[in-house]
């Protein structure tokens, strides 16, 4: 528990006994503070003709250090929920707390970092300058900034590329820069909106493993929006299943897959079981597996 707030790779080393920092327990099992607490959160977008309910009555708690995926079909409000947590939109009802503060306060205090589906790097800045952007905005001194950038480039494996420009990088590398940038201010919460959605499958699997490692090393809680069931199961401690019209949470599945998120997990039977469980939850019916027929 004391390791929960460990930040950055330098103090995020694995403890000697080999256990990592990830906490697989749901909020009910945790005694520490909550990264996110949503109570009865709803979001209504007014349009000219009618009001569109994007989210209704969302109850969600994310423990510090926990990895939670939001999954569901288009229009289920998963991205909206993420934007509410990031204070890019404001909830029309309910209460939203990030580390016990209102979302707006948390945004101003830089309690979270974000990564979107597009890497969203500034094309006129080098990799280093892109990673340094949030630090620059907050007036971090130049030497400290350079040290932090080097550290983060190391963390995402891009040390050799910090002088490149985004148009000289592949999509996967750009996304790694975006993740490094999201981690720059050492947030205790990472918000990710389909960050690997535009990548090819191989890059995607590689970055999933990388993200699992980075999340473990930094001890940050992650709220991860995705379309992909295997991705959600592979990465998460809990998978939150959502459904559209109106957007709401219909199910929460605890994966209980333990600490190790490596390639062997992708072939493990319990992994497939969770994938099936999430799929059933998404479709709302029992899904017959090929070997049960």
């Amino acid at each position, binding site marked *: 528990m004391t390791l929960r707030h460990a930040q950055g790779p330098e103090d995020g080393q694995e403890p000697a006994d080999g256990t990592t920092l990830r906490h697989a327990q749901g909020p009910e099992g945790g005694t520490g503070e909550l990264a996110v607490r949503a109570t009865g959160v709803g979001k209504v977008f007014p349009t000219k003709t009618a009001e569109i309910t994007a989210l209704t009555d969302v109850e969600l708690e994310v423990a510090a250090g926990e990895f939670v995926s939001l999954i569901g079909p288009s229009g289920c409000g998963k991205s909206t929920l993420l934007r509410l947590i*990031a*204070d*890019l939109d404001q909830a029309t009802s309910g209460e939203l707390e990030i580390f016990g503060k209102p979302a707006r306060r948390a*945004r*101003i205090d*830089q309690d*979270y*970092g*974000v990564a*979107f589906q*597009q890497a*969203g790097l*500034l*094309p*006129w800045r080098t990799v280093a300058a892109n990673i340094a*952007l*949030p630090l*620059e*905005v*907050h007036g971090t001194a130049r030497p400290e900034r350079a040290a932090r950038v080097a550290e983060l480039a190391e963390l995402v494996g891009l040390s050799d590329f910090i002088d490149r*420009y*985004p*148009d*000289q990088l592949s999509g996967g590398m750009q996304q790694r820069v975006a993740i490094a940038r999201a981690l720059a201010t050492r947030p205790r919460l990472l918000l990710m909106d389909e960050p690997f959605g535009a990548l090819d499958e191989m890059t995607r699997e590689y970055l999933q493993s990388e993200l699992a490692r980075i999340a473990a090393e930094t001890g940050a809680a992650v709220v991860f929006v995705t379309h992909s069931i295997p991705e959600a199961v592979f990465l998460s401690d809990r998978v939150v299943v959502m459904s559209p019209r109106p957007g709401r949470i219909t199910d929460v599945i605890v994966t209980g897959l333990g600490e190790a998120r490596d390639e062997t997990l992708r072939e493990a039977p319990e992994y497939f079981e969770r994938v099936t469980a999430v799929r059933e939850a998404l479709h709302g019916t029992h899904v017959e597996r090929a070997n049960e027929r």
Partner: protein
Amino acid sequence: MSAASGAGRMRRASGDARQWLAVGWGVLGILTVLILWELYKFLGPAEGVTIGAVEGQSGSGILILPRTHDRAMPHIWDMVTRLFQPTSGGDTPPLWVSVAGAALITLGIAAVGWIIGVVVGAVLGLVMQRWRLVEWGILPWIVVSQIVPLIAFAPVVNAIGNQIDRGGTPWPQWLSVAIIASYLAFFPVAIGMLKGLAAPDRIHVDLMSTYAAGYWSTLLRLRLPAAVPYLLPALRLAAANAVLGAVVAEVSIGMRGGIGRMLIQLAGQASSDPAAPWGPTFGSIALGLIAAGTVALIGVGLKNYRRGEATA
């Protein structure tokens, strides 16, 4: 590493080739104009073609093709040789020296006009982007302002300038010319600034907002850099406009020393010295090119801010 730099070299090489091709097309364009001029002068009737002329009544009818005799259309080589003859006979310096001197004066005034125009245009663009209400309020007026003919507007500025001068604050005539030049120059900058500042992607704006970055921080780190690809052509256009405005303003308020005045003066003597007015004409073309070219140099220093253009 080596593969990447190799690709970079290749991109540069093809860029060079494209640049030379552009130069080639430019030269070809100029040659075409010269050839057409001489060709028409050779083929066209000396007195041009007039329709509906009444016999014995000079000046009647409508001239539909221009006259080609030497007074109306001097040979190109005559125009060029005229440049090296004395400006107004006797011991006066060669025409090209006088043209260059006048062009420099106009260039200086146009530069002042350009700077005023860029500052005013940039401020207008910033204010319009910041407050939508201001955009609705003044954008139509900015557009309308460009419809007012310069020759109608120039004497008004001059009169106001004279009054200020008489009131005790020194107001040299060239300042009026610069103000009029800036009147044409500010327009593209204001529009380019407005478009450029609104250019950043939603995702970048959101990102800055997640950093809790304020207006100025967002302006400096996101909006202004993103506006560069819009601003560079606007600045170039403003430079060309400033030269044009300065030349026209000199003529319409009768300021001495600049190339506009020289053009009018020599054009007045064209019946006796037809090649002379072409000297300042070439001078003002060169002036526009120099002005636009100088501004293009700004773009070289801002190359990295145009990266988005290549990839997007």
